[in-house]
Every structure is written in C-alpha cells, then in structure tokens.
C-alpha cells in the first residue's frame, strides 16, 4: 500500500514538473534522475536569456531513457550544470538561469534552447526520428556540445548515432586557430581534463582514450554546429570544482572551455 502511494506521488510530481516545464523557458526538473544532487537555487525560475539545456537521450544499454529515467544522460546531473552556471554568471555578461533545463528530442521544446549539452554520448542511441530532429535543430542554428566519453569503443558508439544525424558531414579536429578557442579565453594550450575516477585509477584517461581531442562538425559557412569533447570529462571538472582535492587547473580549463563554447554558440 505504501509502495503504491509512493509511486502515485512520484508520478504526480513527475507530471507536475514536466507540465510546468512545457511552458517556454520554465525550469523543468527530473528529481528521480539526479545523479549528483545539488541544492535548488532560489532564483531557479528566473526568466533569462541563456538556459543550459541538458539533452535527455535514450541509452544503448537500457534501450530507453534508463531505469526510472536515470540513463547515461543524467551523469553528473544536476550539480555539474549548476556549478558551471555559477561560473558563467560570474565570469561573463551572459544573463543565464541558475539551473539547467532538461530537453529531449521527442518534442519541439528543444528549439526554444539554441544551446544543448549532452554527456556520456558513448552510450547514446538515437532513433531515426530523434536523429532527424537533432539535425533539424542544429541546421536551424542550434548548437550541441558533447562531453565525457572515452576511448575507441565509446567513440564508435557515438558515431553510430551521429552518422544518423549527419550522414554527410565528417567529424573533424578543431584547429587551435578556430574562434571557439579564442572567443573569450585564448585556449591554445589545452590538456586532458580527467574525471573524478583519476583518484581511483591514478591516471587521467579512461579506457584507451589517452589523447584528448577537440573535434566538431562544421556547417557550409565554416561555423561549428557540434562541438565534441572526446577523452575528457569537463562535466566532472565542473561537478567537483568545490572538491579541494580536485586540481584547480583542470577546473579552470573546463570552465574556460565551457564558457568559450557558449559564447561561441551565441556569436556564430
């Protein structure tokens, strides 16, 4: 009886937050999907110019959005997003909301958020309809940043879905001279940003992803539409920015990269 009550309550809360989120720009939370909980700021519902949209995608392993919605898309969610946004507020003039927005490719709501972040895309598994929508989103002017996937196996898994999005566009290395590395911070000297696992494994890389790479997909006018952060974990660096043991230089680069990517997305 108690389990049924809890389930009903949970469904009600989920529906309530989801319906709330259907209104343009309103905060839409996923309380069951929190991988790394963070306090809800008092100004979570402030209407702002920029909203950090986190892509909710179906995972390869679970065949959907994951058990209780906690697929790989929730990695570091929402603490990484909210800590990063504090940095965006402090370091730039961007008028940003303090909390993220979860978007997916099943409705058109994503088109209200021209910047989207996807994590652990080595496990994403987009349907053809979702791939088409993502392509449409990017071609209209939306920007996708992907992060926190490692090694050749996850790379191939990532490409399997990405090729359905862009069968005709290659993923290429972004040269250091590209504006995305200079739009706010000059980031010619970049290095691998490790996840929290480095304290356990003692190395900064995961699987066979030894060398970090900053890749992307360009449009016909030479503008980046998709920015790919492979063999690094910027999300962890944002999430653990408040952990004394986590090296400051990794956090600094992760913040600078994230901010550059956002400013680039808002200027190109």
């Amino acid at each position: 009886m108690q389990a049924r009550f809890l389930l009903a309550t949970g469904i009600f809360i989920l529906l309530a937050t989801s319906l709330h989120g259907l209104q343009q720009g309103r905060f839409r939370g996923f309380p069951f999907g929190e991988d790394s909980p963070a306090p809800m700021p008092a100004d979570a519902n402030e209407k702002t110019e920029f909203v950090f949209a986190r892509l909710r995608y179906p995972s390869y392993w679970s065949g959907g959005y994951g058990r209780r919605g906690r697929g790989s898309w929730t990695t570091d969610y929402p603490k990484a997003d909210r800590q990063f946004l504090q940095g965006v507020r402090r370091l730039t003039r961007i008028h940003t909301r303090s909390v993220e927005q979860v978007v997916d490719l099943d409705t058109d709501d994503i088109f209200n958020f021209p910047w989207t972040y996807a994590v652990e895309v080595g496990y994403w598994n987009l349907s053809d309809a979702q791939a088409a929508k993502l392509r449409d989103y990017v071609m209209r002017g939306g920007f996708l940043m992907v992060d926190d996937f490692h090694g050749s196996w996850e790379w191939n898994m990532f490409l399997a879905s990405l090729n359905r999005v862009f069968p005709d566009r290659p993923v290429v290395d972004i040269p250091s001279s590209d504006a995305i590395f200079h739009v706010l911070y000059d980031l010619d000297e970049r290095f691998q940003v490790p996840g929290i696992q480095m304290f356990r494994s003692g190395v900064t890389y995961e699987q066979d992803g030894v060398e970090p790479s900053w890749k992307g997909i360009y449009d016909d006018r030479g503008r980046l539409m998709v920015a790919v952060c492979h063999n690094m974990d910027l999300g962890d660096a944002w999430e653990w920015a408040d952990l004394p043991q986590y090296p400051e230089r990794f956090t600094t680069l992760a913040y600078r990269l994230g901010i550059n990517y956002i400013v680039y997305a808002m200027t190109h």
Partner: protein
Amino acid sequence: MFEFFFKYPFTVFAQGEFVLLARWPVWALAASILVISALLGWALWLRRKSPVKAMQAWRPALIWLLQCSLAALILLLLWHPAIAVSTLKPKQNIVAVLVDDSRSMALNEDGTTRLEQARSALEGGTLASLQEKFQVRLYRFGRAVQRMDKLEQATGVDSASRISEALVQVAAEATGLPIGAVLLVSDGADTTGGISPETIAEIRRHRIPVHVLGVGRERPARDVEISDVVLPANALPDSRLAGQVTFLHWGYARSKAKLTVKDGTKVLASRDVTLGPDGTPQTESLSFHAGLAGVRNLEVAVQPLEGEENARNNAVTRLVEVRPNRPRVLYLEGEPRWEFKFVRRAMEEDRNVDLVSVLRTTQNKIYRQGIENPNDLRDGFPSRAEELFAFQGLVIGNVEAAYFTPSQADLVRQFADRRGGGVLFLGGRAALGDGGYRGSSLEDVLPAALPQRAGTFQREPAAVALTPAGQDSLVCRLVEERDKNAQRWTRLPALADYQDAGTPKPGAVVLAEMTPSGGRRLPLLITQNYGRGRIALFATSGSWRWQMLQEQSDLTHEMFWQQLLRWLSSESPGPVVVSTPRRVLADDLRVPIRVEARDKTYAPVVDASVEARIAGPGGLSGTVALSPVPQEPGVYAGEWMAEQPGSYLAEALVSRGGEEIGRDTLAFRREDGVAEHFRTGQNRELLERLAQETGGRYYAPSGLNRLAGEISYSEAGITTREPKDLWNMPAIFLALILLKAVEWFLRRRWGVI
C-alpha cells in the same frame, strides 16, 4: 452678348484707358454730384414728419441712394465718358500665326486631326479677314520655329512642342518688324513643362498680345496614361525595390489592367489592378528585385487596353543604378544574446551588407566580428566621427544609455542627423526605458516617447502583426502579395520577449505591432526620419524564434533582417553626392548637376574645387566646372547640355588643395519623342493663362470668327490711339431705367408715391 450691352469687345475694356472728354474739370463733376446729393437729402429731410409710417427708418436712405446714383450717372454722361484704346493701323502691321507642329497635333479625334480642326477654323474666314487688314506671317513650331507659306505645311511630325521658345523668338523679331499681335494655334501640350514667367515677361515687354486658338479635346474619350513613377535612384544588388505608379484613365472605369516593370524584355514584376473612376489619379505599388550591379533602364507600363486612342503614353522609363556598394553596419551589443547570433547569421547570407559587431562579453572584454583590420574598434564603440561615420548603419542592442560618453552619444545623434546614416535600437533588459534612455541625450533620437515606469522588458511571448503601413513597407515584405504577406506575419512564431517602447512620436511610422498574451498591443517596429538619416526601433530581442521555431528551409528571419538592415544602410550618402532632378530627360537637353561635398566628418566642404566629367553616346564627352551655391554650404551646381539622345554617365570629383575628397557617379538618359505622347488633352488652363497675362484672348475653334474684330486692339506694332464713346452704350441706358424703375417700385410698395 458682351458687345450687345457694352458696344465694344471685351478686349477694348481690357486694354483701354477710361477718359472724360468734356472740357470741364473732373473736380467739378465730383462737386456737382455732392451738391445734388445734398439737395436730394435735404428734400427728404423736410418730409421726415410725413404721417406715412412706411417712410420710417432705413427706407428714406435707400430712396436717397437710388436718386443720387441716377443723378451721378446723368452727370457722368454730361462729362462725355470714353475709353482710349490703341488699335493697329490697317495694312501696316504683321500678325504672326504660330501653328503647333508637334505630334500631338496629329492626334485623330472623331475623324479629324487637331491640325485639321485648326485649319478648318482658320480657313473658315478668319485668316482671310486677317489678311485683309494685316500682313499675316505663318510659322510652325516644335523644337524650333520655321516660317511657312501655307497652313498645310504643318503636318504634326515634330517630336517636341516648345511654346515658350517659339514665342520668345517671335517676340525678338518684333524689335525689327511691326508685329502687332500673335495668334498661337496649339493644344497646349508643351513638352518643356510649361511657360515660364520669364517668357511671359519677355512678351509683355514687347506689349504683344498673344491670342490663342485652342484645339483638341480637353480629355480623351478612351485612354490610360501614366502620370508619374517613383523609383529609388540607387539600389544594392539583389535588393528588393518598391515603386509607385500613378496613372489616370478615361473610359475604362472598373476595367482590369496589368501593370508591368521590364528590364529590356525581361519582366521583373507584373500585377493586375482594377481601374478606378475616370480622370482620377490612381496610385499602385510594385516591388521587384534589382538584380545584378549596373544601370537598369526600366520600363514601367500599363498594358494597352482595347480601343485606347493613344497607347504611347502607357509606358515610361526610369533609370535605376544598381551599385555594387557594400554598406557596413556596426552592431554594438551589450551582452551575448541569441538575437545577436541569429542577426549575424542572417547577414552572413547577405552578400551586399557587411555587419561589423562589437560585443561586450565580460566586464572588461569585447569580442569583435567582421572587422577588416585587427586594430579596428579595438577600444569598442568609436569616439571619433571619422571612425563611426565610415559606417552606413548602426545597431544599438542591449546597451544602457550610460555606456556612451556624452561625446559618443552626440556622435550617435550626428550619425543620423549629419552623416545621414540609419540607427536601429533594439529591445533588451538594459535597452530603451529599462536602459536609462529616458532623460538621456539619446532620448531625442528615439522614434518613441519612452514610458516612465521601469520593467518595460518582459521575457514573455508576444504575437506579431503588421500595421497598414507595414503592409506597404518593403522592410516587412516576406511574401510578394500584400494580403498574403499580412497573413504570413500573423502566423509567425511568437517573439521570445517584448518591450514597451512607449508612444510613437509625431512623424514616426509603426510598421509592426505585437501583442503579449493577455496584454495590449504594443509597437514592435517603428521608423522615423531624423535629419538626413533614418531611425528605427525594434522593441524585442526575441525574433530569433522565427529561425529556431520554423522549418529549416524557411527564410523569414533572414529576409526580415536583411531587408531591415538594407533599409537602414543603403540610402546613407557618401561624402560626395551628385544628383540631377530628372534622370530621364524627355525631349530636353538641359541637365542641371548638383554636387554635395562633405569631408570625413560629414561637415560641408565650402572651399573645394568640383567638376563633373561626362561621357555620352557616340564618344561625346566633356567636363563641367561646378560653382558653389549661395546659402547652401557644401553644395555646388552647374549645367550640362546633353546634345544627343542616349545614355550618359557623369562622375563628380571633389578635391581640396590637390587632395581628393571623394567622387560619385550619376547615370542619366535623354529620350526624344516621348513627352509629346503624354498629357495630350488640350491644356486649356495653360493657354488661357498665356492669353490673359499677355493681353490676348483664348478662342475655341467655334468662336474664332470674333478674332478678326478683336485682334486690332493692341499696343504693339504701328498703332493709333483713339477714344471710343461710352455714353451711348446700351448698358448705360439700361442702368438709368433700372434705377428709376426700382425707386418707383419701392415707393409704390411702401405706399409713399
């Protein structure tokens, strides 16, 4: 009728001088009238105590007035009134008959041409009567005046009709010949734009009365005629142009007609219109793409309708210079915004406008895009006029008014006012009313009076719609047809945000409005002229949703912003501007050239040397030195004669102390035989005015038989001055009888006989 009552023609009274022939002094007449009036008044005074009630109050005064008038008239006749008028001496004077030989005189009306109508009227006895009294010289005129022996030599072949020049030439002959009067035979369809006051003055100086025989119908029975076409003189490549065509018609009310714009044989625009009432000017708009760079000789036409009397007045040509300019627009943005990104992307698709942007990314850093040199705009918004005025357009985004120093704010104002550029203000949380613009030095520039309250910027969706002015504006044209375009706007995705910009100022035009859900309508896009430039206000930063919320193939957002920024920047003048009032010279060869010269700060250059180098058809070329125009600093003017028909190109060069300040080009074209086909109805107003101002009379063909009797009264040529008695005019006797009859009638009515 006039002659029946007044004995002499009207001309005698118009030209003559009133005189009294009696030897008695005029003061004696006045004194006599006074004495008689006093006696009559005294007589009435004596009868003031009459028991007759009816003679009370004002009635005796009226009787007295009638009696005085009668007495005054009789006294006047005793003084022998007459009119002294100069008359031409028979057989000693020349009457010049000027026959209009232009093509409009060959127009067929009801089976006869206008020339035939004129010949018929003249040969119906008038010409013979004139030849009995005077030596008659026949002339025909079009572009020039020529003597002719017979009226048949005028055949209506000349491509122009220059009445002024013909009259002046004949008047000049009067210095050596006794020309007593001129008879002008014309339909008044002058191709030089009318008869100048100088011409009238010249004729009056010779005292030659110009009598006019007006021929031709004053309005055609069935015709369509283009009366005016307004097109921009310059355009950017691939830009959309709007033209306004004004035309009149007679006999085709409620018929359908097709308007077209052609470049050679290529149809650029076509539109069906329904014709309005007869003789009423009707204005319709057309829009089309300018195409590639070059000079376009565009033909704007109403396709001829069935049964039209004159199809050659259905088309006019206009020159449009499509210049390969790339106006530069500076976009200052206060913080990263989606609108900024999507405006940049829209303008990257426009090959003809360069968007240069300065974006404040942090408290201390700016990000510049579209710059040509790494040092450009290094310090952000320009502080020097030379730097800012190098742009043609300026967009001010989410930037608070306090960002600008006083001198920068003044530069923004001068950018529109003096430089003639376009300034666009966008909505935002730190823009307009929320950005402290109310009460700032930039408030005057804005096209709206900002609200007093704060919180005018709201991040809530707002639906958009065009106003009637917006439906006519090219800036808002997303779909060619007006109605469909208006519907298209109502189907656009809602804006992401809106700002209450307040009340549009007088003279401002609201092109689009927006309605927040549950709110009142607010102006969205306002435009206004300011000094030499243009100002616009777009009270949102949320049009980016038109891009993200519509199909990828939809170009609404791109089109709107490209059109808006082209409107903003394409008409901004350079430092040197050369112009001429009419770029298509219809049967005219005079080309007034005007050059406006300014330096890099757009201050007028008053000590420049200015010349225009002109190249024309068949290797024709020349240079005109232009002189400063008094009272207009920085303006220089001169005139060139386009001796041959064809296309010309003029380049104006402005220099000072050997250093070139700037140059500009101007294309113009001379076309012959065009104007003659327009305004072919008889211009009776012009002809009547000419006759009236020179002491002549206007005659219709049916009334020409009076001419022979009236033409003798003239002060030109060899004349004699003779008085003509007035005492025996029937009108005088009628007046005497009337005065007495009225008095008798009143007395009888009032019972005081």
